[in-house]
């Protein structure tokens, strides 16, 4: 842009600029217009005519533009009077060009001005950047000249030294940065002075104190560096320093925390430990309140459940909370403590008044910030350490780290203490304990310490003899080493093992022990030592073994009893007994023999061991003295078999290298039936207890064998009986067959010929003769009916009957059809429902048809027969009633009528065979039903049958 009020000159300038390549030059003619356009267009350079028409002249305009817009201005002037030049100089122009000028002159001035402006701009920016940086950095910075007088001080330095910028500028550095040694407060050479003197960087470590303007002492670290110019001359120094007050304090706290932790791990009583922790924490670090919650798990541990219970707390508030057993459920949403417990991370609230998740505790009204630190042992939550402070924003990251350190140590200490109390509560009576208590070095597995009882138990005389021995010397099994391996691998998870183990005494005798091993951890929670408590359980083991033997004895007896029940053979029973007795009585050989006293033989029933194959199946009983003693129920025992032994059995077992044996009698119902023989390859091998066991087994065995024999006899008997029944049945069947076939043939002949006589010789017979012939025919007919009925009756007991649901409707339908002729004059009323019953079709038809036929038959000649049939449900049965209006049955006869051939009337009056109701009775029994009658003489009868519901 150029400012020129002469239009012709302006045109010329524009032209020249164009020639120089500044195509877009802008021409304005007044100062006001120039300021306005510069504001809008921001040109790179302004060419300014000094004398301008209008209110503002060129100098004023240039001044405004440079100050306001920082745009370089070059004056164009025709006058070069000294006054004007003086005026323009004050505006610090970037150049002058004197009218009239050539293009070259113009170009040179413009380029120079633009370059200078660019450099100035960069320099300014750099200065501003440096200044801003120095002003704002956290480090304190002071710059001095070469004499050590202050030329710059940043706000951090002002704050630290308590010297303001105004006060300090120009001051001697020794005044403002006044330092002494931390140890003895004696002055030391100022690093700035030293740097100026030596020309090198001087650092002061953190054991120096800065004395502020108001005489406060602050620990600082500082660095002073000389500032050199291009000629390597020292022109000043820069001092950078930092306040170490907080760091110092934190360092101190960390030290305290570590110390606290170390001391805590030495406390083995949980109560002391917790009390010590909360009080020491509070006092050492100046907390408002400190308490510890311990975590108590509830349920199976998978579903995170449980409570955090205040176990220790500082001051009265702590006591009250402890007494109240103040607790927080693990799932409490807002609780700081519960959140820390759940997340396994510290939870901090630095401004409790603004945090709505904080629940104010009325006992602790001054709490402003609070931190909850979880107590963890590996992944396991032990509790929460809760710290409260009466200042806002107290807990920074450093502090939390420190508290975590304390919490970790506390966790380990607690764990150790708990283990110790759990397993060695009697630590003060370890010395007097009758149990072996020892400490084992985890590195080389040697015994570090052991109590007097332990020395005795292991069979040593002196403590020195046992200290330093590998624990494997005492406990030869790998159980301890396996536990150690688990402890090392699984870290915090495994802490205790308890079980049975073996202890080797110094004399080599091994005794059974009950052993507890637990880990003692160091401050870092790493396994440090193993402790073990050992109790000699020889006595208990012996008792156990005795009990076990008794149990075994019972088991054998039970097994033998079971064999009886399953009706196995005598051989199998004997085998079972032998199998079990070997578990109780150690013997090389056992066998069971049964005796035949008449033949004086013993037959081998079952046998065990290697001699099994070598024994004969039968031995002669030659020594009757032995047999007699056995018969009396005495056990015969031979403690030392010698070659002059009398019996073939003894000789046989001597051949097999057996040296002693016992023979236990098997006695059933007072009779000697055999013997249980146990033999050993050692002499005198059978103790009284063993003989007792053998006796018990022998007793059971006798009964079992006897039972089996009886069972077999009964079985044989049953088979014979069944055969006989079968034979009888077959006989009966062929008898019935004969009856039905052969007995009827002559009847047919009698009937047939009587009929032929009547037809063919009617003329030769008089009326009496004809009547006789008719009677012959009728008698034959009746006998046939009788035979038929008897056959039906006998068939009822012989035929197989399959029961299934039957429709009574069908049955009655069939019966009415069968009896159509007989019933043609009767009134039959059948009432629904007729439910299904369980029965057999043709059998049931027989029953019902007999009842209905009787109902129709037994009426006085003048009565019109009326029969009512209906059913009635009785529990799970159906009762079918058949009621008639007949002659009735006197009470005294009501039972008789169901017997076979029982008749109450002459055939002439009421025809019948006397078998009908007997058939009904027999048939209903086969259908698992019942039959009965209710009747009054002369007033009809009500017969009923009952069958299972279908």
């Amino acid at each position, binding site marked *: 842009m150029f400012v020129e009020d002469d239009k012709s000159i302006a045109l010329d300038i524009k032209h020249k600029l164009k020639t120089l390549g500044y195509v877009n030059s802008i021409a304005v003619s007044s100062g006001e217009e120039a300021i306005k356009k510069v504001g809008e267009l921001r040109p790179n350079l302004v060419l300014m005519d000094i004398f301008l028409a209008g209110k503002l002249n060129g100098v004023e305009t240039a001044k405004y533009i440079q100050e306001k817009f920082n745009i370089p201005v070059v004056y164009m002037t025709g006058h070069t009077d000294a006054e004007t030049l003086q005026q323009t100089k004050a505006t610090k122009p970037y150049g002058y060009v004197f009218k009239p000028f050539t293009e070259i002159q113009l170009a040179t001035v413009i380029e120079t001005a633009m370059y200078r402006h660019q450099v100035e701009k960069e320099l300014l920016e750099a200065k501003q950047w440096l200044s801003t940086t120095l002003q704002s950095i956290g480090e304190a910075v002071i710059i001095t000249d070469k004499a050590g007088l202050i030329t710059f001080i940043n706000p951090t330095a002002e704050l630290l030294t308590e010297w303001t910028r105004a006060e300090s500028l120009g001051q001697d550095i020794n005044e403002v940065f006044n330092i002494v040694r931390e140890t003895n407060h004696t002055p030391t050479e100022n690093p700035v002075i030293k740097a100026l003197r030596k020309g090198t960087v001087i650092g002061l470590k953190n054991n120096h104190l800065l004395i502020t303007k108001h005489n406060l002492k602050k620990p600082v670290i500082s660095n002073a560096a000389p500032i050199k110019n291009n000629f390597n001359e020292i022109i000043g120094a820069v001092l950078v320093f930092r306040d170490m007050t907080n760091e110092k304090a934190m360092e101190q706290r960390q030290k305290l925390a570590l110390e606290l932790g170390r001391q805590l791990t030495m406390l083995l009583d949980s109560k002391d430990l917790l009390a010590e922790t909360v009080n020491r924490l509070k006092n050492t670090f100046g907390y408002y309140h400190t308490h510890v919650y311990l975590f108590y798990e509830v349920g199976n541990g998978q579903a995170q459940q449980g409570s955090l219970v205040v176990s220790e707390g500082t001051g009265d508030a702590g006591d009250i909370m402890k007494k109240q057993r103040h607790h927080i459920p693990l799932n409490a949403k807002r609780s700081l403590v519960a959140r820390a417990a759940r997340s396994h991370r510290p939870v901090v609230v630095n401004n409790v008044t603004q945090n709505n998740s904080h629940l104010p505790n009325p006992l602790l009204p001054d709490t402003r910030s609070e931190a909850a630190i979880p107590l963890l042992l590996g992944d396991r939550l032990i509790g929460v350490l809760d710290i409260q402070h009466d200042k806002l924003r107290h807990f920074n990251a450093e502090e939390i780290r420190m508290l975590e350190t304390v919490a970790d140590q506390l966790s380990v200490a607690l764990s150790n203490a708990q283990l110790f109390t759990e397993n060695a509560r009697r630590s003060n009576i370890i010395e007097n304990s009758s149990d072996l208590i020892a400490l084992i070095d985890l590195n080389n597995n040697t015994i570090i310490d052991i109590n007097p009882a332990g020395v005795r138990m292991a069979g040593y005389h002196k403590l020195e003899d046992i200290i330093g021995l590998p624990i494997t010397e005492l406990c030869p099994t790998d159980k301890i080493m396996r536990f150690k391996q688990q402890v090392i691998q699984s870290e915090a998870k495994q802490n205790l093992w308890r079980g049975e183990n073996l202890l080797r005494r110094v004399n080599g005798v091994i005794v059974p022990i009950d052993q507890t091993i637990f880990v003692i951890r160091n401050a870092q929670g790493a396994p440090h030592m193993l402790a073990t408590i050992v109790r000699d359980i020889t006595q208990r083991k012996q008792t156990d073994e005795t009990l076990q033997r008794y149990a075994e004895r019972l088991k054998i007896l039970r097994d033998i009893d079971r064999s009886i029940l399953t009706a196995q053979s005598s051989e199998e029973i004997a085998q079972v007994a032998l199998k079990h007795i070997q578990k109780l009585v150690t013997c090389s050989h056992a066998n069971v023999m049964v005796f035949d006293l008449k033949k004086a033989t013993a037959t081998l029933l079952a046998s065990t061991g290697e001699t099994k194959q070598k024994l004969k199946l039968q031995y002669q009983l030659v020594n009757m003295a032995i047999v007699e003693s056995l018969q009396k129920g005495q056990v015969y025992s031979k403690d030392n078999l010698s070659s002059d032994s009398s019996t073939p059995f003894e000789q046989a077992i001597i051949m097999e290298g057996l040296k002693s044996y016992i023979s236990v009698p098997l006695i059933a119902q007072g009779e000697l039936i055999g013997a249980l023989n146990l033999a050993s390859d050692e002499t005198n091998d059978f103790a009284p207890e063993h003989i007792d066991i053998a006796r018990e087994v022998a007793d059971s065995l006798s009964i079992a064998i006897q039972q089996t024999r009886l069972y077999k006899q009964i079985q044989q008997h049953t088979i014979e009986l069944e055969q006989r029944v079968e034979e009888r049945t077959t006989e009966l069947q062929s008898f*019935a*067959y004969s009856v*039905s*076939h*052969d007995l*009827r*043939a*002559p*009847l*047919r*002949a009698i*009937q*047939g*010929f009587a*009929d*032929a006589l009547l037809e063919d010789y009617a003329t030769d017979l008089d009326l009496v003769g004809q009547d006789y012939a008719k009677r012959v*025919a009728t008698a*034959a*007919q009746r006998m*046939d009916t009788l035979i*038929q009925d008897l*056959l039906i009756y006998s*068939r009822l007991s012989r*035929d197989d009957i399959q029961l299934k649901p039957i429709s009574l409707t069908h049955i009655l339908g069939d019966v009415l059809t069968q009896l159509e002729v007989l019933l043609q004059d009767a009134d039959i009323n059948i009432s629904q429902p007729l439910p299904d019953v369980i029965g057999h079709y043709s059998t049931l038809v027989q029953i019902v048809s007999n009842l209905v036929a009787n109902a129709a038959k037994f009426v006085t000649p003048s009565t019109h027969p009326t029969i009512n049939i209906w059913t009635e449900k009785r529990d799970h049965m159906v009762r079918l009633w058949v009621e008639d209006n007949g002659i009735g049955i006197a009470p005294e006869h009501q039972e008789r009528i169901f017997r076979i051939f029982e008749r109450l009337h002459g055939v002439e009056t009421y025809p019948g065979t006397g078998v009908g109701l007997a058939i009904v009775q027999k048939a209903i029994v086969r259908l698992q039903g019942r039959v009965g009658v209710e009747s009054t003489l002369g007033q009809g009868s009500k017969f009923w049958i009952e069958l299972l519901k279908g």
Partner: protein
Amino acid sequence: MATNTILLAEDEPNDVFLIKRAFQKANLKNTIQVAEDGDMVVAYLSGEGQFANREEYPLPALLMLDLKLPRRSGLEVLMWLKQQPNLKRLPAIILTSSSETSDINQAYDLGANSFLIKPVSFQTLVEMVKTIDAYWINLNKRPRFRDY
């Protein structure tokens, strides 16, 4: 060769007499040939010995078979009959005193065409033979079997 001959296997002379008399009373003209035991039935049907003369002893249209026969029981005869390729289709009616279920079932199992119980009453017998003739000889369509 259509024939009205009935072979009656029956050992009881009284029964033979009465059955023949029943046919007579019923005015039936069937020829009744009688075999007195099981073997004779087999011989007759096989055409052995005297029975080779089919003029005199023609193959019957129907066999009336008692179960209880000397030498060879009715069931044995039935079993034999049903195994003869040429004779197996000859209708066989069991006419017996036995009403035993086992007899009835066995007879049907062996291929009996009918099972009748001999009635004691002569009048019933007459009715029975009438029915037999009406059904088995006249109404029933006879099977074909080869003659020799």
